[in-house]
């Protein structure tokens, strides 16, 4: 699978999860910060579990602290797949 496909797939998973958490779909994009989307630490913990289940990527607490934007999370997942 190409990196482009990987990124698109991960992006879809992350966007879908953020919608489930209650983020406004029209505001979800790579540059959006989790803070602006009103996504909190529990949501990010849940996202970590979803990503672990779907892609086998494990987040450490320190990794999560460094993720500020949606793009940060997508890039981290793709880089650690």
């Amino acid at each position: 699978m190409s990196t482009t496909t990987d990124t698109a797939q991960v992006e879809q998973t992350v966007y879908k999860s953020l919608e489930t958490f209650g983020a406004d779909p029209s505001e979800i994009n790579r540059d959006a910060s989790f803070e602006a989307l009103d996504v909190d630490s529990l949501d990010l913990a849940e996202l970590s579990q979803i990503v672990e289940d779907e892609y086998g990527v494990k987040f450490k607490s320190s990794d999560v602290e460094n993720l500020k934007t949606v793009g940060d999370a997508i890039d981290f997942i793709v880089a650690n797949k």
Partner: protein
Amino acid sequence: MSGRPDNAAIIVTGAARGIGAASVQELAADGWAVAVLHRNGRGDAETLAQQIVDAGGRAIPIRADLREPAEVEQAFEAAQQELGPVLGLVNNAGVRADNLALSISDEDWQLVLDTNLSAAFRLTRRAMRGMLRARFGRIVNVASVVGPRANPGQANYAASKAGLIGMTKTVAAEVARKGVTVNAVAPGFIATEMTKDVPPEVLEAVPARRAGQPQEVAACVRFLASDAAAYVTGTTLYVDGGMSA
């Protein structure tokens, strides 16, 4: 606010006898598919599960030593595979190893804390994954009146049960907005195998002047696990004949 999905399963630990077994019966009667977890009560657990199946319900016995994290994980997976998504959890398994604090060995301290508290935490952490995604979950921790109040000779037990209540409150606050409730029941003197060596004089401290029955605790567990208790979270329900009043 979502209600319990039809295929939801609930795990009850320490379920072969006493409060655990009574809770299994109440929860099955309320429509839950029940995983009857036990460590050394195979015969009782199998009979209990069969009774529920015969009555038209769903239940399976699962053996696990909850002090072993790998067995906790295996038991959880087995429950999920056999019964459906685990959206309920009753942390009931508990042991006593009484002595004055001065004489409690490291082993007896660890045994009680591992079984009564750490195992409950591990199961809670595991179960919350699915509960959060389902936006529905019910966790009921079986604590005790001992912990919130002193009981000489039970420093280890009291620490484990007070810890369980503390964990209940904090986890409840963490996940409340996701439709998951976490509560505790605190039984007083209940007539079970675990209390058969407790001297009858203890009843003098009980305003109701009698021991409680496991079914009376189980009825509270059933309520806290029900849709009706959706707005009840982080609380401890005392079932003690007025002992804590």
